[in-house]
C-alpha cells in the first residue's frame, strides 16, 4: 500500500500518524522540537520575571492589565485545544469531513484569540504609551506575549494550509502525521498560554 493512497476502513491502522517510518520520525522529531520550545519560552519567562517591576516610570502591571479580556482569551484558546482533540478523534475513526470541520472551528477560535491580543496590545500602546521601547518591563512583556502570539499566528497558517491542501485528498498515511503533529503544536501553544495567563496576568494583578 502506498502512503498517498486514500485510507479506507479496511486499511486504516489504529495509529495512522505512526504507521509509516516518516510518520514515526515526524512524531519523534516534533517532540524534540517541543522540548526546545520549552527552553525558548522558559528563557522569555525568566527575563519577564526578572524585569517586570522595571517600569521606568510607566504603567505597572496592576494599572495595565484587565482580567475580563484575559479570561475571554483564555477560554477561547482552551476551547480551541478541545476542538483540535475532537479533530484527532475523528481522524482515528476515519471521519475526514468531521476532522476538517473541527480544525476549521479550531482555526476560528485561534483567530478570535489573536484578534483579542492585537486589540489588547493596541490598547496598551494608545492609552498607556506602553510600548516595547518604553521600559525593560515593556520589552520583556511584548517579547514574551508577542512570541506566543506569533506562534498562534503561525499555527493558524499551518493548520489552514493543511485543511486546504488535503481537502480533496482525504486521509492518507502521508498526511495523517502532518495533521497529528499540527494538533500537538496547537496544544503546546495552549500549554504556554496557561503559564502566561498565570505568571504574567494573574500574578501581575496580585502584585
Amino acid at each position, binding site marked *: *500500500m502506498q502512503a498517498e493512497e486514500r485510507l479506507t*476502513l*479496511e*486499511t*486504516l*491502522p*489504529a*495509529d495512522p500518524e*505512526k*504507521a*509509516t*517510518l516518516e510518520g*514515526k520520525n515526524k*512524531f*519523534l522529531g516534533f*517532540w*524534540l522540537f*517541543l*522540548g*526546545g*520550545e*520549552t*527552553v525558548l*519560552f*522558559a*528563557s522569555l*519567562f*525568566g*527575563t519577564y*520575571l*526578572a*524585569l517586570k517591576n522595571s517600569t521606568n516610570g510607566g504603567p505597572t502591571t496592576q494599572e495595565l492589565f484587565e*482580567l475580563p479580556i484575559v*479570561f475571554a482569551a*483564555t*477560554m477561547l484558546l*482552551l476551547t480551541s*485545544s*478541545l476542538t483540535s*482533540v*475532537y479533530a484527532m*478523534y475523528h481522524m*482515528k*475513526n476515519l471521519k475526514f469531513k468531521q476532522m476538517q470541520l473541527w480544525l476549521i472551528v479550531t482555526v476560528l477560535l485561534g483567530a478570535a484569540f489573536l484578534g483579542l491580543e492585537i486589540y489588547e496590545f493596541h490598547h496598551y500602546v494608545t492609552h498607556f504609551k506602553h510600548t516595547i521601547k518604553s521600559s525593560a518591563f515593556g520589552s520583556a512583556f511584548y517579547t514574551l506575549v508577542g512570541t506566543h502570539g506569533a506562534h498562534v499566528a503561525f499555527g493558524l497558517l499551518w493548520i489552514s494550509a493543511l485543511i486546504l491542501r488535503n481537502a480533496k485528498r482525504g486521509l492518507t*498515511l502521508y498526511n495523517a502525521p502532518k495533521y497529528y503533529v499540527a494538533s*500537538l503544536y496547537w*496544544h*503546546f501553544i*495552549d*500549554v504556554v498560554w*496557561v*503559564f502566561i*495567563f*498565570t*505568571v504574567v496576568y*494573574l*500574578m501581575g*494583578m*496580585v*502584585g
Partner: protein
Amino acid sequence: MASKQPEIANSKVNIEYRRKKNAEDMKHQVISFALMIFLTLIAFLAVMYPKTFDPLFTVPFIILLAVVQVIFQLYYFMHMSHKGHEAPALFLYAGIAVGFLTILTFMLLMWW
C-alpha cells in the same frame, strides 16, 4: 508492528472495538477539559477577590493550578499517557529541566 498493520485488512470486529476505545478516550478528554476550565476559574477567582487570600498564598496556589492544568493538557490532550511516549517524555522533561534552571538563574541574578 504498527507499520505492518496496513497490509492486513481490518475486520469489522477490530474496527468496532477501536471505535469504542476511541470513544472511551474522547470521554476522558472531555472530563479533563471540564477540569481544566474549573482550575482556570479558581485561579481567576482567587485573584479577582484578593481579600479572600493572602498574596503570599495566592501566587504559589495559582502556579500549582497552572502546573496541574498543564499535566492534564500533556497527558490527555497530547496523549502522553498512551504507550510509546518514552522519548517524547525524555525530550520534554529535559526541556523543562533546562528551562527551570534558566528561570532560577535569571531570578537569582536580579535578587542578589
